[in-house]
């Protein structure tokens, strides 16, 4: 495996905003590996679960414990999450598991940015930006949703405390942070969720 240059900083240097109705924090560097292939194949499943240490998620589901997890992204795509420092070793392990099977694993860690959105009104803030039903009985922990946030693509999931994890393209990190800030500005509670 060839040496890969890695970034030592997140897109926005750990930006945060807590002057509004929700708290927005840019996450530290997060390892992310896109894995494409036949999701029914044992090799593909083992390649993902072997490095993430969680069960294979079902359709539109995510299993994530701290910095490690697996997200179902499409009928032939998973996003494998792991600590940033472990990506190279995990890539090698995955390639070994995949063998000569028809599949593709790519390190996309430095092509993405990640945010956490929390607080009492976090669902309100997300609902302003994405065309998704975010009521507590509709968008539940364990689901992942790929959609758009205003004008850019994003994926997010939520935990039991209404804390969202949001992934977007690194080049759009500033845009997404600004969107979240505007949607979370003081006094902008909608309160329908």
């Amino acid at each position: 495996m060839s040496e890969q240059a890695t970034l030592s900083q997140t897109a926005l240097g750990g930006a945060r905003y807590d002057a509004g109705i929700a708290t927005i924090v840019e996450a530290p560097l997060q390892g992310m590996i896109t894995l494409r292939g036949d999701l029914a194949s044992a090799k593909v499943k083992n390649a993902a679960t072997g490095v993430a240490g969680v069960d294979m998620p079902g359709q539109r589901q995510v299993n994530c414990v701290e910095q490690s997890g697996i997200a179902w992204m499409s009928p032939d795509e998973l996003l494998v999450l792991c600590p940033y420092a472990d990506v190279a070793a995990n890539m090698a392990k995955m390639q070994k598991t995949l063998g000569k099977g028809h599949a593709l694993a790519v390190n996309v860690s430095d092509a993405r940015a990640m945010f956490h959105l929390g607080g009492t009104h976090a669902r309100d803030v997300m609902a302003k930006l994405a065309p998704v039903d975010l009521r507590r009985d509709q968008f539940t922990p364990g689901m992942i949703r790929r959609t758009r946030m205003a004008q850019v693509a994003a994926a997010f999931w939520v935990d039991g405390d209404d804390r969202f994890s949001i992934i977007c393209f690194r080049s759009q990190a500033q845009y997404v942070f600004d969107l979240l800030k505007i949607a979370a500005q003081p006094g902008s509670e909608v309160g329908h969720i």
Partner: protein
Amino acid sequence: MLILTCPMCGVTAEETEFHGGGEAHLKRFGPGSSEDEFEGYLFMRENPKGVHFERWRHANGCGKWFHAARCTTTLEVFGTYAAQTYEPPAEIKAVISDKRPGWRWREHS
């Protein structure tokens, strides 16, 4: 508002999560075809008031292409189905016949 269900990932969302891909079930005419066939393939499109078949892509979601059968006047969606088919499936046609008896679209009815 047009609400579509992506048959590839199962998400139901309004149209801004998707991107329209034009008319469905076009038959390609390339080198060796007549000028009329080639013109029809490139330029001639249906513009119905009522039942229509289109290609859509779940652009801000799973990224997959699929087909949708819908009504252009009411935005009612009769069904969505896989991209890997040359013509509307029988079950989609049955739903349309139920709701729009006597419908016709190109050579389908």
